[in-house]
């Protein structure tokens, strides 16, 4: 893929969130609608196109922990707030390629993680689990070796202890398992077809209504 080749040429070991999602989107994985902007004029065009409420995120390949660095502003509802947030984020960034990602705000209470890891023995393996802060705290995750069949994808979702979160609970719709399975299969495919992709971390994948959407993503490369 071009994005990957370009990053490698430039000696980058990670893709930015925006680039990472382009990789995912190229494999038909549903990602948030988003536009990358550098100035207030572009920002205004983008906010119009995406529509409020929205999320602004500092975006650069050099940044990985956005929340801790005050680079994420959520639930922005008008042009004034967007302009203030944009300026704050730009001021907080100290990298070379500063830009701000204007992103639709996906509503959903259930956060999942989907990832790819390259095991020294088994090669590309797909990971699934509870997302957000629970990934780190509970480590409720499962793996399958790529390539995955649909059956593998469905089984690995059922393998985690918290699998009932995917059911219709607390007035929420049941998660679309077919759509999730499709993402898992595609992530495995990315790993098989792109040797330079060392890791993928899509966290969170939000369940919006019943549909999964990749809200944040990181692709790590092997130079």
């Amino acid at each position, binding site marked *: 893929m071009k994005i990957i080749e370009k990053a490698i040429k430039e000696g980058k070991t990670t893709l930015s969130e925006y680039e990472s999602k382009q990789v995912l989107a190229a494999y038909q994985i549903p990602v948030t609608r988003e536009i990358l902007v550098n100035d207030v004029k572009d920002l205004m065009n983008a906010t119009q196109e995406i529509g409020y409420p929205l999320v602004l995120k500092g975006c650069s390949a050099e940044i990985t922990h956005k929340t801790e660095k005050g680079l994420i502003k959520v639930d922005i509802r008008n042009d004034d707030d967007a302009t203030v947030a944009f300026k704050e984020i730009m001021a907080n960034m100290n990298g070379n390629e500063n830009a701000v990602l204007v992103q639709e705000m996906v509503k959903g209470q259930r956060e999942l993680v989907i990832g790819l890891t390259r*095991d*020294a*023995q*088994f*090669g590309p*393996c797909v990971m699934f689990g509870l997302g957000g802060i629970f990934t780190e705290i509970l480590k409720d*995750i*499962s*793996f*399958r*070796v790529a*390539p995955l*069949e649909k*059956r*593998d994808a469905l089984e*690995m979702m059922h393998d985690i202890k918290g699998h009932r979160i995917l059911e219709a609970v607390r007035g929420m719709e049941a998660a679309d398992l077919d759509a999730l399975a499709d993402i898992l299969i595609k992530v495995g495919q990315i790993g098989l077809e792109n040797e330079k992709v060392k890791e993928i971390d899509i966290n969170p994948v939000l369940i919006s209504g019943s549909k999964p959407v990749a809200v944040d993503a990181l692709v790590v490369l092997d130079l």
Partner: protein
Amino acid sequence: MKNLECFFRPRSLAIVGASDQAMRPGNILINNLVRFNYQGKIYPVNPKSKPILGLKTYSTISEIPGEIDLVFSLIGIEGNLGLIEECSRKGVKGLVVAAGGYSDGGNEGREKEKKLVETAHKYGMRIIGPNTVGYSNPYNNFILSMIDTKEPLKGRASFICQTGQFATNIIEWFMSFGKTGISQCIDLGNKADIDDSDVLEYLSEDPNTSAVGIYTETIKNARRFMDTASHISAKKPIVVFKPGRTKEGAMMARSHTGALVSDEKIINAAIEQAGLVRAYRVDEFLDMMRLFARGVRIKGNRVGIVTNTGAGAIMSIDTMEKYGLELAELAEETKNALIPIYASYQEPGNPVDIGPAINIKGAEESFKIALRAVDNDPGVDCILLISIAFHSNCFFVPDFGYIGAICKSLKKPVIASITGSETAYLSIYELLEPAGVLTYPGPEAATTGIGGGYQYTLGQKRTKGKSFFEK
């Protein structure tokens, strides 16, 4: 380089580091070969030694007059590179390396191991080991092991091991469960060159092997392994016993054979995706292997239990859950057929506890009626027969010669659990096994065997006989 005949059917064999002193590995190895009547030529090599067990001893490989197919090296790390050079001049095709301290000995050893394999490959030579004790094949009287080996029984199960002493140990252990024999037992040591996949391919062609048990601390060339193993397991079930699930256990595995350790969850997924059966404990491993060695297949998870001990049934039921087994729901007709052997206060059901009936109908009649009724039930996939055994005759325990004949006439596989002393167990084992009833020394062991059989069926439904990358 696929042909491993030079390792497993060598016409001639040189032992470098042979010894004239009993109890030394270089002596035990030759003693095993002679004692079990190896048919090829044996050339002991040791510059200082007198004849060993009546065999002329040579001071170097080059001195040996005839051709040599295989060389077993018992010398230390330092000598092996030179030995390979010497072997290459004699046209040797295979080398077994016993020395430890390669990848099992830290970074420096890892480098030495790499060099060892590179040098061998340069001359078209292949290596088993290093860090191996050897291997055994009772069918062609070829016991190539530096451990004093008890005469192996011929059977249908082959084992591939990654660790020395255990490979030999497992043969004795396996045999002691009853009289289950082996077809081949191969210790691959550090698997620097020849690995599980190579040997699986070889064993898939071995007419004496019906199932393969793999003791492994690390899976090398893992994707090829998944592909090869999933393909072969369509015909020959493969049980993978990989210990080291805990962090500490995994660290021990690493220092033991220099193994690269993958995440436990990944290994589990891989084994499942390849349609293989996983064992976590050594008793579980052997219990499952016994079932496969006998060619028994468990087609579904619905177990019908016929027992003269309620306690045994409970132990079995507790073990069933782990393997996805279930107590079969008996049909009305089956229950009706059981009424004659049930006391008035009992409700016929599964497990079929014939304890009370024995007082009235006698053990043989009660077992016969129960076994036939359960066998006729379309909702039952296999029968678990549970009985106690005592040092003397007991009216609760039937004549198992008679019960064996009944079992033989049944349509479904019967697996038995006999609890009691070793003598009592073995006397019943002798009667049931010839009747085709796989007999275990306890309800958990028997249920584990059935569980392994069912896991295999599940795995085959998943892979549908195709290899991992064909899907």
